[in-house]
């Protein structure tokens, strides 16, 4: 087994100065929510630890996770990130193709048995023996099971791998299934989002490499440091929510003033993600900042929650256009009508009875 270069070696080889390297370490520490005392630890790990091999497989997906990932700004730019993790197999990014690529996958699995991280983008469809997604002439689910068998841990990139996303939306014709329902015997980190934030993706990887363990996960298996709070909890428009100042229509005066998008169907209050703190594209902006509500893309089954522009979920059980308000008001209306009718009949009947009573008394 050849000695793999450390991160530091790679960085130096790529012409990154030690000063830049130390900056990177402190930025990473900050991104992970660690104190300054962790900076030398991260630096030490980067200098001494061999790079962890990563196999990145693609199932049913749109590659938006990869697109997001290669735009990560902190930790550092894409070339360093790619060098950092020794990405031994990623059919989208690697130079090799076809048999060569598949050979690289087999190589990595054999060489680093039990030591590599398996990153999964997309999910396997299970219907028709997985024939809806073929990689290297075989169903993707087989590649996934094969690669997962000797992996140290699995990262489920994005909403597809974590929850199923659009291909698993009702009626889910290919039975697209999230990774944790196919692979049940490995530690799995879910990094949901459509796509996940670039810095969240690289942050998770950096944490795992630095500390040689999984980051702290919440009950759903997401890294708590990035998915511990709702968009709503850290939203800069939150004061307008509490004040009761909402955008009523797109492009109205309130929209220009930057009021809360709650009435426009913003899913911020039900979405756990770091968009409102980390933001996107080097911290430039995030959906709410650009005037559109959150669509809740990092939540389980977000495609099945009805319109992106309505906060009350569609209830398809009751027909195409029904939601809780429509069903509830219809029920209340029916009951109200029933009560009115019943009351009318009751009054009529008792009036009738009273007339009969007086009549029978008169007869006596």
């Amino acid at each position: 087994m050849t000695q793999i270069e450390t991160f530091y070696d790679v960085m130096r080889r790529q012409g990154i100065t030690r000063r830049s390297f130390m900056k990177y370490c402190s930025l990473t520490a900050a991104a992970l929510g660690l104190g300054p005392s962790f900076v030398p630890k991260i630096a030490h790990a980067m200098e001494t630890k061999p790079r962890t091999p990563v196999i990145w497989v693609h199932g049913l997906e749109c590659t938006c996770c990869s697109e997001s990932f290669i735009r990560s700004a902190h930790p550092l730019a894409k070339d360093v990130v790619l060098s950092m993790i020794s990405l031994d197999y990623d059919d989208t990014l690697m130079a090799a193709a076809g048999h060569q690529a598949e050979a690289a996958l087999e190589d990595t699995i054999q060489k680093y048995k039990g030591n590599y991280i398996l990153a999964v983008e997309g999910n396997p469809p299970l219907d028709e023996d997985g024939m809806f997604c073929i990689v290297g002439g075989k169903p993707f689910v087989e590649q996934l099971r094969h690669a997962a068998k000797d992996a140290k841990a699995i990262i489920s990139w994005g909403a597809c791998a974590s929850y199923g996303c659009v291909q698993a939306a009702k009626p889910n014709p290919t039975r697209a299934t999230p990774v944790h329902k196919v692979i049940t015997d490995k530690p799995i980190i879910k990094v949901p989002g459509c796509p996940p934030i670039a810095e969240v993706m690289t942050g998770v990887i950096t944490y795992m490499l630095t500390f040689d363990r999984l980051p702290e996960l919440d009950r759903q298996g997401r890294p708590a440091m990035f998915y511990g709070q709702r968009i709503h909890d850290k939203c800069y428009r939150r004061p307008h929510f509490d004040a009761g100042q909402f955008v009523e229509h797109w492009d109205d005066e309130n929209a220009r003033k930057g009021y809360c998008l709650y009435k426009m169907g913003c899913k911020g209050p039900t979405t756990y993600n770091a968009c409102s703190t980390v933001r996107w594209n080097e911290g430039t902006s995030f959906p709410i900042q650009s005037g559109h509500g959150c669509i809740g893309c990092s939540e389980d089954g977000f495609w099945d929650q009805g319109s992106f522009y309505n906060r009350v979920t569609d209830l398809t059980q009751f027909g195409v256009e029904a939601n809780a308000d429509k069903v509830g008001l219809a029920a209340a209306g029916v009951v109200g009508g029933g009560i009115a009718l019943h009351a009318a009949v009751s009054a009529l009947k008792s009036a009738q009875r009273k007339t009969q009573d007086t009549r029978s008394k008169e007869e006596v």
Partner: protein
Amino acid sequence: MTGAAGSSGQPAGGRPPLGTADAGHTGQHHVTRQTSIYVYEWPVRLWHWINAAAILVLIVTGWFIGSPPPSMQIGEATHQFVFGYIRFAHFAAGMIMTVGFFGRIYWAFVGNHHARQMFYLPLARKSWWQEIWHEMKWYAFIEKTPKKYIGHNPLAQIAMFFFMTVGLTFMIVTGFALYAEGVGQGSWLDAIFGPLRDWIGNSQVLHSLHHLGMYAILVFMMIHIYAAIREDIMSRQSMVSTMISGHRTFKDDAPE
């Protein structure tokens, strides 16, 4: 007297039977008979009205949380807390209702047997099923004379059980699961109710369930108030005043 409640009501204070000034010769006969039974003890009545008030506040504020009122421009967002107060009222009423509900459960153990009626269904009792049938006929205008009940009639008992005992529990649990989201991960509320949210998956589904629960309670409220008033007028016993004084009075002396 039919079986629904037995007859362990206490006498009305044990006063000597006295005539009233405005009672005529025939009236005297009625007022000298003891025709009332103490059914709902004060904690039950107190709970009922606190619960009713809390539910009213919860429905109104909950409706506004789902569909907020028009935006208001009282001042800068810093100095304005309209929606915050609506949510505060909702949370406060929810907690009052929860405390009340626990108090009510406690009273089911230490109170009289009418206090327990809301929490179970006597499914094994044959006469209960017959009474259900009778009640259904009474409400369908087939039966001419209603039966006398000291406590709830069986249909009311079913409604109480499903909408109050089960329904309130559902609303309290889902409500606190939603409230725990705001309190944040790591809090004890999240430790208790977080797993429910994660089991359901998307918190928006939980919101929808809580929202639908509101309509169930609303429908119950409509039926409950209608039935109480209707029974007060048309049945052979007091209804509305019973939840104020605790005494059930009967309008005639017939045994059933």
